[in-house]
């Protein structure tokens, strides 16, 4: 410390002596995930049995049993399945061999899958899920997913949800959604909706429709779309009895949380996907993880809560407290916006005006737009002032567009669409949303403008616009806003 700073410090110390300065509340950080996993223990790992050669005699016997199942209308079906059950996991290597043997008939391979489902043990379900994840034969994946329906090994739910994300075979997706629903999770209903709306054949459309309806009926809801909406806004789970959470499932979930700290962002993204598709009880572990010392874990936990949105409302107070942790604050602010946690308006407005961290201020500006509280207009206007950083101004402008769409805000966003090194697409999306909502409120004035706006996107579906095409679209849309839409603002 220099002499000058020492003297100044001494003077300040004397001058301020006795006055307690207000300190922000401390948000406690500690080890959360590792102790939790230690507490849950290693669990029962499905035995990876060495592929011992199966004695010819036994193989013959097992093949004849599978053959019996492969025969249509076999009256001995139940007896054969019971026989397999009595042998527990001893037949798994044989069944896996039959299942993966492309020289076997489809009937035999299907029968092996049926037995694996009927055994319903951790190891047999592991075989089904592993095949579902790695097989390049859609019909095999479909069979595996179908036979998973009704199994009771809840610890496989995270992997089933992840498979739903990547499954390209529509029929398999339908069975996976059914399977998850059987375990009390309705995240797959949205997948059924996608199959219903985009499937390649009328049969698949009908299959998806039928399953949406049956799942809705089982949950006591009028139709599949309502079921999906209720799941997404959290109301369904408030209505239904909470699903049982096995220790094995809990362990899998904490492992998913632990993997949020992995190097590979694709692993992280997959885990975020799983965690946000889980049932609402996931909010508790995620809230605990907000206190984790590992910065990656706590930030990604906040992102998961953001994606859970209304389903994570319980986390509102904890996220509010997390605003006091500087590295977590921007993610916590975004999450509070997504939760619709209106009590956060005041601290977010304060951060917007006073924080030194531009990331936090920008996140606060966007969150306030999502919360859409009238009271936030004034602080957002302050953040929109010309003296502020351009990105902060844009975030404030996008939020103001939903709350107080004045001419200067619209004009500024139109400018941002064509200015260099700006988040032009974000400005474009905000203006697009504003035009759409304006059209709803005042169709006569805004419908023609919105039509023109939409027509200016000439890129074919699935095609990537070139830089030139993108710039031309942005320029044309900006011009449309300044020449036509501005005049319509009252």
């Amino acid at each position, binding site marked *: 410390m220099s*002499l*000058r700073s020492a*003297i100044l410090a001494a003077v300040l110390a004397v001058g301020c002596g006795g006055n307690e300065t207000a300190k922000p509340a401390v948000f406690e950080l500690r080890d959360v995930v590792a102790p939790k996993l230690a507490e849950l223990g290693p669990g029962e790992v499905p035995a990876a049995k060495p592929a011992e050669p199966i004695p010819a005699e036994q193989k013959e016997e097992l093949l004849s049993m599978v053959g019996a199942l492969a025969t249509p209308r076999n009256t001995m079906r139940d007896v054969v399945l019971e026989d397999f059950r009595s042998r527990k996991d001893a037949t798994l290597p044989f069944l896996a061999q039959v299942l993966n043997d492309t020289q076997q008939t489809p009937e035999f391979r299907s029968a092996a899958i049926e037995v694996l489902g009927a055994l319903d043990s951790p190891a047999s379900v592991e075989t089904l899920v592993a095949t579902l994840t*790695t097989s*390049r034969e859609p019909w095999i994946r479909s069979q595996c997913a179908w036979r998973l329906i009704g199994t009771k090994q809840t610890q496989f739910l995270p992997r089933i949800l992840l498979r739903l*994300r*990547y499954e*390209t075979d529509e029929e398999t997706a339908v069975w996976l959604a059914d399977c998850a629903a059987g375990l009390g999770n309705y995240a797959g209903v949205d997948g059924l909706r996608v199959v219903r709306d985009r499937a390649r054949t009328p049969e698949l459309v009908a299959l998806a429709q039928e399953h949406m309806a049956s799942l809705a009926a089982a949950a006591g809801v009028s139709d599949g779309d309502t079921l999906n909406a209720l799941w997404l806004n959290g109301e369904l789970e408030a209505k239904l009895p909470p699903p049982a959470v096995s220790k094995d499932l809990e362990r899998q979930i904490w492992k998913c949380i632990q993997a949020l700290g992995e*190097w*590979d*962002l*694709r692993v*992280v*993204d*997959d885990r*975020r996907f799983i965690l946000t598709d889980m049932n609402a009880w996931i909010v508790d572990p995620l809230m605990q993880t907000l206190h984790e010392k590992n*910065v*990656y874990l706590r*930030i990604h936990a906040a*992102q998961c809560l953001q994606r859970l949105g209304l389903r994570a409302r319980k986390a509102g107070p904890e996220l509010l407290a997390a605003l006091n942790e500087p590295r977590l604050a*921007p993610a916590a602010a*975004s999450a509070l916006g997504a939760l619709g946690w209106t009590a956060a308006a005041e601290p977010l407005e304060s951060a917007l005006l006073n924080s030194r961290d*531009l*990331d936090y*201020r*920008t*996140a606060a500006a*966007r969150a306030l737009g999502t919360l859409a509280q009238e009271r936030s207009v004034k602080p957002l206007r302050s953040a929109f002032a010309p003296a502020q*950083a351009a*990105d*902060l101004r844009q*975030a404030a402008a996008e939020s103001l567009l939903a709350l107080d769409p004045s001419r200067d805000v619209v004009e500024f966003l139109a400018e941002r669409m064509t200015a260099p*090194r*700006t*988040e*032009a*697409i974000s400005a474009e*999306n905000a203006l697009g949303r504003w035009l759409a909502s304006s059209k709803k409120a005042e169709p006569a004035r805004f419908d023609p403008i919105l039509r023109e706006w939409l027509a200016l996107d000439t890129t074919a579906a699935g*095609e*990537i*616009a*070139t*830089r030139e*095409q*993108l710039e031309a679209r942005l320029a044309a849309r900006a011009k449309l806003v300044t020449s036509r839409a501005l005049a319509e603002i009252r």
Partner: protein
Amino acid sequence: MESAVSRISLRQFSGFVLLGLGAAVTFFVFRPVEAPAESRVFTSSDQCAACHATVFAEWQQSWHSRAWEDPDVQALSNDFANTDCIDCHAPRPVFETGVGQRVLPRSSRRAEGVDCISCHLLAEGARGTVAGTLEDSAAACRPVAMRELAQPEFCGVCHDQHKTVQQWRESSYPAAGVSCVDCHMPFRNGDPNQGRNHTMHGGHDIELVRSAVSFTARRDGSKLVAAVENVAAGHHFPTDERSRAADIFWRPLAAAGETPGPWRWAYRFRSPYRHEVDLVDTLLPAHEKREVVIEDEAARGAIELSLFYKITPYWKDPAHPDPDAEARLLYRVTLEP
């Protein structure tokens, strides 16, 4: 008459002396000194341009500066709805999380992409404000010499997400002392005193890509054998798994004045996306050669073969790819019957 001195008490005298001393100390403490330029808070890379015009101009030309805005990135990341892309396309400072650690995403200034601040700004509490190659406590940016800036682990905080640095580690280049900056950030005019070029050319520089591989073709009886060898890329060809691709096409050679027929696809070098479960990874590791055999009646006459390179992996019409329009030509060879 009493002297003035005798009229003031010792106590008063001491008071004057102390006052004088106090004034002297105050003057010493608050005297104008030749201060270094005021330290600045860096909130945008634009602030760097005033003093580092050349570097800034180079960076503006670089693909790092377009990491957020590039339409291909926007499309492939679903307008960054795929949030895992944000971490590296708009990263918080590397030194904030630490070299070797994964970077974290920012929520402001994202259109600046991978900017000066991402690589050079030091974490709060560090000895200086920015990392550089020289120490200068008088400069506004308070640079501190940090060797980490030129180490592969530094580039790896982002580029190893696509396994590029890992691929380099598995090659012979580390042992030869050749690292990322030697090819992608060479010294300006080859002179270390002029600093490193910040255009950071790579997969978008077609000449650099061309220099990475060789392409040959020969006949083997009735078969045609095309060979691609990774002769100079310090990592797989192409790297940046998933997004990039290179394809071998061939077609019968058109006679003079005739329009050539459509290209026929033979082979693709690419690492698939997570959802592309039916595809296998065919990237070509450093130093390796891959031969592709083509057996076709139409290949028995005079033919031309080409190696094309694509920045984005998809064709507009996968059943009828048009490499002339949608890809960039690396090499073309012809073979007589």
